[in-house]
């Protein structure tokens, strides 16, 4: 049970030239796609799934780790250099970072985001290394009622906290659960909701749900209201060596650490993912700022980029803790990663660290390696990412659609999958159009069947006694903390909404 030794063995695997190349490939592709406007981390991971279909599991997961972290880095570049905020997790970064860029301090914003992300992800990966094995060892003792309780917690928090209203989140969750029902049910082999269509008998693959909702849905939505005219990019000054002044460093290092401390724990609990973490970090920095700096918030404060950006990446690593140890995805991105694991016949969960320990540790080691690659890559290569941002929009969204179709087709080489993808995408389009969050639907789609299996197992053991669901100590604790999560989460979200509406007003005033 020497975790350090196993981690070193993981490094030995991940440092082989072949796997290093895979990590590099994943990092570059992840960043390049993550930089593309309108593409958040979840969509990056979903779109790039097909390139891992034919790799061996270790290589595939290493590529995946690179894509996951790379997508996070890429997203912040986009929000700093483009005029409007994009994906929600980096919306706070966009607030201050975009203002900084407009003042000609874009380079400093990018640098503090990149270095902060590096520090946060490194520290959080150490956290993952330390916490995950302990959690996994303990999680082995959990039974079906406990897992069912965990999933109920995940459903409720995700449904209630993602998006702007509880009922809309729940509706999105319900649609995902419904898609999860379609197909042949595992325990007794009955076909459900297939309408006798053979292609539906195997169920709707989660990849189809994720790619459809994110890639196709987003493309259709953007297409319906595409901005015309040239892309408004903020130019970045050359010379990355003197990007950050001494003062910038002095202002940044504390927010980096605070952001990490806020992000990692929030990432590990099912509380709405990185959104909450970035917002909390921003609020903390604003409150802790000294008097003369407080005035800078809303006008391009570097602390407002450094903190939230670190929190964002620390949370991304934190999300891997419940994913690897419990098999519980708490964000849409995690749900897609889970389905990628499953496509290799690997079931994340407490047994993962025992049965596939070489693979897991190689994955964790490659997270460290990918992170260093990202820091080295990002600062000097910003010029290239800026070029990527300028891809003409018609070609960009056509490319996204094409890649989405490829991903669906390459799963089984069946054109009907492409049509299912389109239908799911259409739903995703309507959901965006009418203000429904799509993440709960993805999570419902993947967790639904797992929750049903656990529920039925639990009741089979207890011979139909429903009280067995709550009498296990862990399940009872889970249900009680669910209430606490919800109360705290809804309170935080309320504040977040209020805060998000404030700077918008400030923007209107300061606009010429």
């Amino acid at each position, binding site marked *: 049970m020497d975790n350090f030794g196993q981690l070193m063995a993981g490094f030995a695997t991940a440092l082989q030239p072949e796997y290093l190349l895979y990590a590099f490939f994943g990092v570059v592709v992840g960043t390049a796609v993550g930089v593309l*406007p*309108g593409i958040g981390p979840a969509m990056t991971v979903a779109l790039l799934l*097909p390139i891992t279909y034919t*790799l061996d599991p270790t290589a595939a997961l290493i590529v995946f780790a690179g894509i996951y972290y790379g997508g996070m880095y890429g997203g912040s570049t986009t929000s700093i250099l*483009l*005029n*409007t*905020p994009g994906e929600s997790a980096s919306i706070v970064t966009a607030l201050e970072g975009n203002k900084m860029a407009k003042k000609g301090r874009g380079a400093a914003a990018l640098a503090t985001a990149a270095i902060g992300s590096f520090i946060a992800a490194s520290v959080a990966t150490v956290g993952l290394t330390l916490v995950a094995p302990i959690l996994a060892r303990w999680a082995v003792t959990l039974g079906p009622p406990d897992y069912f309780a965990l999933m109920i917690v995940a459903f409720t928090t995700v449904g209630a906290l993602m998006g702007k*209203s509880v*009922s*809309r989140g*729940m509706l999105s*969750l*319900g*649609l995902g*659960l*419904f898609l999860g*029902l379609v197909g042949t049910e595992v*325990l*007794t082999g*009955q076909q*459900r*909701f297939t309408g006798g269509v053979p292609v539906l008998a195997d169920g709707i693959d989660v990849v189809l749900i994720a790619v459809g909702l994110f890639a196709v849905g*987003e493309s259709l*939505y*953007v*297409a319906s*209201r*595409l*901005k015309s005219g040239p892309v408004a990019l903020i130019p970045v000054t050359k010379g990355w060596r003197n990007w950050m002044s001494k003062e910038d460093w002095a202002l940044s290092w504390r927010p980096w650490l605070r952001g990490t401390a806020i992000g990692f724990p929030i990432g590990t609990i099912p509380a709405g993912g990185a959104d909450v973490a970035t917002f909390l970090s921003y609020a903390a920095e604003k409150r802790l700022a000294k008097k003369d700096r407080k005035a800078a918030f809303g006008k391009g404060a570097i602390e407002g980029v450094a903190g939230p950006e670190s929190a964002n990446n620390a949370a991304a690593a934190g999300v891997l803790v419940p994913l690897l140890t419990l098999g519980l995805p708490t964000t849409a991105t995690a749900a897609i990663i889970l389905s990628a694991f499953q496509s290799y016949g690997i079931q994340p969960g407490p047994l993962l660290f025992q049965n596939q320990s070489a693979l897991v540790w190689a994955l964790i080691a490659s997270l460290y390696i990918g992170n260093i690659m990202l820091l080295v890559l990002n600062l000097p290569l910003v010029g290239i990412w800026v070029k990527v941002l300028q891809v*003409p*929009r*018609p*070609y960009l*969204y*056509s*490319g996204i*659609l*094409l890649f989405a179709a*490829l991903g669906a*087709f*390459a799963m089984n080489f069946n*054109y009907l999958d*492409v049509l299912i993808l*389109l239908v799911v995408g259409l739903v995703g*389009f*309507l*959901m965006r*159009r*009418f*203000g429904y969050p799509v993440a709960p639907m993805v999570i419902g789609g993947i967790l*639904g069947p797992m929750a*049903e299996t656990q*529920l*039925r197992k639990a*009741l*089979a053991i207890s*011979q139909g006694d429903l009280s067995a669901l709550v009498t296990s100590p862990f399940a009872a604790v889970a249900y009680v903390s669910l209430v606490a999560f919800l109360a705290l989460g809804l309170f935080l979200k309320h504040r977040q*909404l209020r805060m998000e*509406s404030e700077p918008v007003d400030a923007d209107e005033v300061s606009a010429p």
Partner: protein
Amino acid sequence: MTSPQSGSSGASAPGEPHSVSESNSGRRTPIGEYLFAALAAGIGIYVLIAANFIRIPISSNTLGPRSFPYLVGALLLCAGIAVFVGVRRGRLGEAEEGEDVDSSSETDWVTVGKLIAFFTAHAYLIQFIGWPLAAAVLFAGAAWSLGARRLRLAIPIALALGFTIYFLFGRLLGLSLPAGPLLDWIPFF
């Protein structure tokens, strides 16, 4: 029938500042909002009814294959009704924002329709003209729908992209996409 607060989420007039309160200021009934919520509730009802027809095998133990669908159906029905009531009370959904989204413009259904058509065509065409050409159809068609200015540029790009992906995936990743009857006779494919 119309509630005083009702308005269409995406239909705020051009140039109007976009904020939470202001997006409710349109005067039209948000038909789409009602329809989507009703559709979800309808799926809920369908699930509740159709669940009764799932065969329960004799071997099944305490909780059969019907119970979970009942829960899902109930959730969908309740959430659909809740959103519907919310919309009646003026709580409209906020259309998502994004880097390339012009929040002041109305939904352009024609473009969406064109994209759906090309996507469907792509799916059906794979078996007849092969993946690379079908991919070119999707890319060029989508680029044209989205307003790419020069078709003379879009079509070569589409063809190049289709064949590049085909060879990259076939050679490097070992994922052989079908070349289709049109190209299969060329030994290269």
